[in-house]
């Protein structure tokens, strides 16, 4: 029989990784939607409207999956990690509650208007709703990343003893809310997470646009979306490098054991940078390594000789595993470099639409979307495995040492391995089904494509019944639709 700890970790990792396919995609797509709708408001060119509507439909599908799979983690804290929940509840809970109140309500309220409100509210109100949904998505990232960062670099709290039913337990209690929110790693990590989301959204749009260009379908639509998404992808790919570099410096100070695992740095001393390799924790070496001597020290301290803390400085029972964080970290960084080369290399080809004739390059963009999906996941695997064995890091607050909480100490006392195995199988099969259907429906939507302006009349934006006669003509004129003969082409919810 496998043990509860491993199973609970596998379950949490599996459910959160599946969930994390969707939120960064919707946050990134949100930006593109806002930009396209802004273009529609500015120019009143109906093509922008159709483009925004198409991405809204894709957005809604992904958002629904994000909502459906997101509530699972909130339950799992309690079901599988009861001891952890009691330890962190006083600190972590307020961030989670704030997320619900500030972010989720904002998102879900305006999502209704965004998806179903095209014909019920005016274009400005609709634009405002898109903006709010995008902001709401980012707010939810704020609170959950703050909570996670607090576990990595806790601040603004102290650990106290309390008695419950005559026995003693420990828990973290908040002493300074803002110090908790702005703990040493939260801003860096949040920035990086949001940048990762924007890159994913942009590559997703690039992929579908490139596909249409290659198939010579919806060309007008694709040529509107491709350049916007390429600019977004390029800007954020460069920013990811900057923020990643900053973050690595923070990690070297706050979680040296984690950085040592990322870099396969076994012995304290000047750090080499491994480009590739196969770290071996028992032999304390990296096999088959391609390395740049002194580069790690130089990146962290601008000095190739300055020593970097190695795993030898960390007590054995506090060392994270090395192989997985090392590989995932390197995978993420490698993909990030690829995004920079690809997007910066393509930008000049936008001039006079030269990129649209480079079929091989468009094919690269069709498949490149897999990259940011993997990079986002790999980054989180590195971050979460790299902080083991701690679920909450120990720290020093005002000169006093605060005990941490080990992952193995966070489990539910009442839950047995057989129960967790059962729920892993349950979620495994449900999520496999959802994944297949997600791909299938996404493909249907892409094959169906955006509505071509030539075949479709803009429905007039009025709150109640569609207006008739002169009003309708006027609304149509305002909406830029010139096809008044086509009296009712509204499709029955295809």
């Amino acid at each position, binding site marked *: 029989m496998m043990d509860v700890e491993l199973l609970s970790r596998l379950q949490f990792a599996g459910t959160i990784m599946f969930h994390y396919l969707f939120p960064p995609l919707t946050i990134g797509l949100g930006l593109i939607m806002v930009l396209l709708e802004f273009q529609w408001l500015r120019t009143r060119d109906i093509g922008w409207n159709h483009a925004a509507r198409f991405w809204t439909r894709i957005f809604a599908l992904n958002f*629904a999956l994000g909502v459906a799979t997101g*509530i699972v983690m909130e*339950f799992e804290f309690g079901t599988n990690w*009861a001891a952890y*929940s009691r330890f962190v509840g006083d600190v972590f809970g307020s961030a989670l509650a704030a997320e619900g109140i500030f972010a989720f309500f904002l998102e879900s309220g305006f999502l209704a208007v965004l998806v179903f409100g095209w014909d019920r509210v005016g274009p400005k109100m609709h634009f405002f709703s898109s903006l709010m949904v995008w902001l709401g998505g980012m707010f939810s990232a704020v609170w959950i990343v703050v909570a996670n960062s607090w576990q990595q670099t806790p601040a603004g709290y102290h650990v106290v003893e309390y008695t419950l039913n005559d026995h003693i337990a420990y828990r973290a209690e908040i002493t300074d*809310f803002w110090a908790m929110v702005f703990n040493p790693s939260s801003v860096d990590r949040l920035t990086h997470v949001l940048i990762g989301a924007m890159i994913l959204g942009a590559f997703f749009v690039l992929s579908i646009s490139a596909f249409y260009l290659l198939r010579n379908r919806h060309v007008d639509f694709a040529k509107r979306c491709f350049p916007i998404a390429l600019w977004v992808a390029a800007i954020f790919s460069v920013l990811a490098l900057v923020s990643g570099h900053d973050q690595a410096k923070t990690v070297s100070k706050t979680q040296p054991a984690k950085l040592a695992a990322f870099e396969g740095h076994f012995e304290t001393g000047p750090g080499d940078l491994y480009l590739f390799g196969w770290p071996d924790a028992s032999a304390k070496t990296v096999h088959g390594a391609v390395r740049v001597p002194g580069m790690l020290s130089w990146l962290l301290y601008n000095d190739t000789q300055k020593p970097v803390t190695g795993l030898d400085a960390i007590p054995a029972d506090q060392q994270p595993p090395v192989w997985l964080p090392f590989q995932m970290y390197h995978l993420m960084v490698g993909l990030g470099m690829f995004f920079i080369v690809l997007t910066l290399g393509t930008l000049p080809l936008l001039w006079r639409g030269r990129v649209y004739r480079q079929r091989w390059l468009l094919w690269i963009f069709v498949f490149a979307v897999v990259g940011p999906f993997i990079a986002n996941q790999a980054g989180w695997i590195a971050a979460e495995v790299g902080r083991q064995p701690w679920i909450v890091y120990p720290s020093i607050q005002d000169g006093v040492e605060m005990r941490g909480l080990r992952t193995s100490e966070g489990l539910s006392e009442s839950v047995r391995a057989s129960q967790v195995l059962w729920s892993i199988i349950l979620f495994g099969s449900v999520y496999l089904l959802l994944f297949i259907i997600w791909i299938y429906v996404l493909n249907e939507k892409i094959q169906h494509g955006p509505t071509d302006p030539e075949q479709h009349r803009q429905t007039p934006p009025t709150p109640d019944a569609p207006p008739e006669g002169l009003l309708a003509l006027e609304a149509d004129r305002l909406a830029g639709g010139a096809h008044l003969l086509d009296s009712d082409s509204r499709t029955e919810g295809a």
Partner: protein
Amino acid sequence: MIETLAVIWFGLLGILLIGYVVLDGFDLGVGILHPFAPADRDRRILMNAIGPLWDGNEVWLVTFGGALFAAFPVAYATVFSAFYEPFMLLLVALIFRAVSLEFRSKVKAVRWRRLWDFGFFGGSFLAAFLLGAAGGRTMLGIPMNQTLHTALDLSDWLAPLPLLVGALTVALFAMHGAIFLLLKTEAELQARMRKWAWRCYFAFLALYLLTTAYVALNVPRATANFQQHPWFWIVPVLNLLAIANIPRALRHGSPGYAFFSSSAIIVALAFLFATAMYPNLVISDIDPRWNVTIFNGCSSEKTLKIMLVIAGIGMPFVLSYTAVVYWVFRGRVTLGESSY
């Protein structure tokens, strides 16, 4: 001071729970009634009646969970780990409810739509039943020892009260959903839903009387708080008035009034549940000394204060978005290009 804060948070959690069951109650009810609208067009109207609303309504549950975690971590951790299997099933039910809404309209094939019809109905039905059953089990208490160890098995769930409250919740939500649909549909479909509102009403009435009798005879704790606060009796009386008002409103063809009444019933039942529990959050049926209460299971004074500030800033926004969305999507359902 901390006692006052704990009581305030118990009340606020009650409000979040009420917000959830009143709002998502009709969504789940619509899902339960879904198979009883035979035509594809009618089913689409049902789904679109809650299309813009269900997601925001489910957020009340998410926020309730977050607030319980933050304000009473010990209770959150104990209940959630004790209710492992039903809560995992609840999650799967809520997942199927959500994705069925989104997936069903995307492909026209009959078999595809049947699949998601089943997912929507099954998810809604199971979610309503499990929420009720969890409430019933919470009222009865769980086998919890001094170190918060619990071990529930299937027989703890097949007890009369969890089953009764589960069935009661299904009937109540279905009634609430049917009445909501009276406001959202017209003509033939509306007539059909009126029939279902009546059927659900009688099912609810029967289960309500049974549950009340069972609780009165077997769970003396449930009314213990009434002795200290006799004015609490107003609530069951108002509840009876609301129950009596539904047939009147249905006969007079004023669904708005009926919807108000069914919402009032839900509020009253949630209130009675809260008074049956207070001040306990988790009841140990081994020894009442091991009960987790709002006083021994709450967070620190500082956290409860911070959360009060968060709620104070956030709730006006929440209520205004909710009002805006319900206003924008008022009136009967019309199927359009962006519908499900």
